[in-house]
């Protein structure tokens, strides 16, 4: 038996073990002062249910840094429906809001999940929903409940029912195994998209969250693949001599911007995924790379060193002249638009520190959000509230997230090995809500 075969056997043994628990552990390192107290009562259930919905919701809300869920031992009562709630109890505890719910088996592996959110001081229901779900979808239901609670109480959409794509590297330095993974935004349900003995880079989500484009060295050259996340089926979309990298889906999902150096040096191209027509957008002796689409699809921002050091430039998504848009810091690269298009996140280098900065598109104002010296690969949460990025100072590469206002910070640590480049998915698939219901 060859060592290679042996390794594959060992790896296949290891993989299922890894996904039984959270692959990524997410810790709040800095929260908002005065996070909103909320009581989340364990949901009522008559039969055993495979997931603890209330615990998942509490963990989601705590992770956001904006809520302080009451520890379970401090709960005064265990109501499961409005009729069982004594608001006076909860007022005495000083919690502003209360979540109760119930799970009922309605068939083999089928559940009905019902929850209500109350304003404790007004003694009134704020919202209530009922879902039906298979056992496999209960975590998704929990994240969707977190989204509803978050939006009801903060006025902004939640981004809990989303996923993260990320690249890991593990094993000895000279024989690393690279892997592209997708996990729920809380680090659970990790799924291996690709495993390779050669580097994998630059994962990018399709706007509908069903496909990932990435750069793989698996054939000892750079190639761009587009892979369907649920089926695993993939298409090789670029395999030209030289660089094939930096894939970025257009907002309509039909085109892929990328960097190719087949014509001599790195230039930005756009590939029509259906017709395979390839259009070259830049013509410059400098390095042009890392295209990112404005949310309306009309503009591309990219990294270029045409002025000496790398800076960000903006041009029409049909090509033409490019305008430099970054002027602070001696290095600006890897620009990425916020979901609503009013900000641009980037890696900003000043001397030998490289940090994540955001630039307001209208005013040009720049704010540096991170505080270490090797921060890279920014990616916005689909609600624009947080930026996920990679940081690489210690023995292990880690991911971190910071809120746009800089007040909430999280670290995302892999159980073992390095985690690098991560990309936050667009909003997730919504399960059908059967009905909303209100207090009689």
């Amino acid at each position, binding site marked *: 038996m060859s060592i290679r075969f042996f*390794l594959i056997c060992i790896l296949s043994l290891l993989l299922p073990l890894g996904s039984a628990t959270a692959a990524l552990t997410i810790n709040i390192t800095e929260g908002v002062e005065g996070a909103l107290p909320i009581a989340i009562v364990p949901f009522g259930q008559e039969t055993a249910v495979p997931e603890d919905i209330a615990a998942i919701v509490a963990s989601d809300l705590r992770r956001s840094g904006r809520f302080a869920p009451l520890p379970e031992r401090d709960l005064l009562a265990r109501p499961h429906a409005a009729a069982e709630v004594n608001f006076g109890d909860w007022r005495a505890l000083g919690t502003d809001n209360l979540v109760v719910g119930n799970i009922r088996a309605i068939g083999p592996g089928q559940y009905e999940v019902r929850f209500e959110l109350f304003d404790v001081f007004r003694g009134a229901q704020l919202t209530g929903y009922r879902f039906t779900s298979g056992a496999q979808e209960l975590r998704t239901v929990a994240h969707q409940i977190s989204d509803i609670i978050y939006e009801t109480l903060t006025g902004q959409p939640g981004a809990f029912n989303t996923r993260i794509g990320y690249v890991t590297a593990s094993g*000895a330095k000279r024989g690393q195994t690279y892997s592209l993974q997708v996990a729920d935004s809380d680090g659970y349900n990790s799924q291996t998209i690709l495993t390779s003995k050669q*580097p994998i880079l630059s994962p990018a989500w399709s706007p509908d969250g069903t496909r990932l484009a990435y750069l793989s060295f698996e054939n000892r050259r750079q190639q761009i693949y587009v892979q369907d996340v649920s089926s695993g089926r993939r298409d090789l979309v670029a395999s030209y001599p030289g660089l094939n990298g930096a894939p970025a889906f257009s907002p309509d999902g039909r085109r892929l911007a990328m960097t190719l150096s087949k014509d001599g040096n790195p230039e930005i191209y756009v590939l029509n995924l259906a017709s395979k027509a390839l259009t070259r957008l830049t013509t410059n002796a400098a390095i042009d790379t890392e295209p990112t689409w404005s949310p309306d699809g009309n503009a591309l921002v990219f990294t270029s060193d045409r002025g000496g050091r790398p800076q960000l430039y903006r041009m029409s998504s049909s090509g033409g002249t490019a305008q430099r848009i970054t002027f602070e810091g001696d290095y600006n690269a890897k620009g990425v638009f916020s979901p609503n298009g009013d900000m641009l996140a980037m890696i900003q280098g000043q001397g030998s520190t490289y940090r994540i900065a955001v630039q307001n598109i209208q005013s040009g104002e720049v704010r540096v959000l991170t505080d270490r010296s090797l921060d890279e690969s920014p990616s916005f949460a689909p609600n624009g509230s947080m930026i996920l990025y990679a940081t690489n100072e210690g023995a292990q590469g880690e991911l971190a997230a910071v809120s746009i206002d800089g007040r909430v910070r999280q670290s995302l640590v892999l159980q073992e090995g390095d985690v690098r480049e991560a990309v936050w998915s667009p909003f997730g698939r919504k399960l059908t809500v059967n009905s909303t219901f209100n207090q009689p």
Partner: protein
Amino acid sequence: MKVFTKLLFIALSAILMFGCASKTPKGGAKVDDLNANNGVTTDGTQQGGVGGDPYSDPSSALYNQKRVVYFDLDSTEVTQSDRPTISAHAKYLAGNSGQTVSLEGHADERGSREYNLALGERRSNAVRQLLLAEGVAANQIQTISYGEEKPAETGHDEDAWQYNRRVEFVYGAR
């Protein structure tokens, strides 16, 4: 079970590393260690090609020759002190028209990964141009950039970075 498989994995990784390292002659210098980087692969696509490894053949003009050239920060210019290394490789290739070399460009870890890929490509192209100028045929040279993905040294300071901004000459990689 989990602990056992992990230990087995670590043991196998060690065997794999040792197995590959032993293929490369020990020259004592840092540059010799670097080439072990290119030997470690279980994907089977890099087998010894035409001509084998000239570094380990005492009759080759490249025996004990430097196989890596280094670059300054954000620079793609080959330094004067590395020009004799380039010339030695050019002479060898020009005299062995059946031999091919892969120029693997690398960057240090600072900044963005894709920009570093572009920088690594520019460095390998700079070496390629010098080889062409010294009479090597274009079809003997291929280039690939790994950017910051395969550092020779894993530290996070200039002590490591200076060894990571480099182009490696890899023979028989086709």
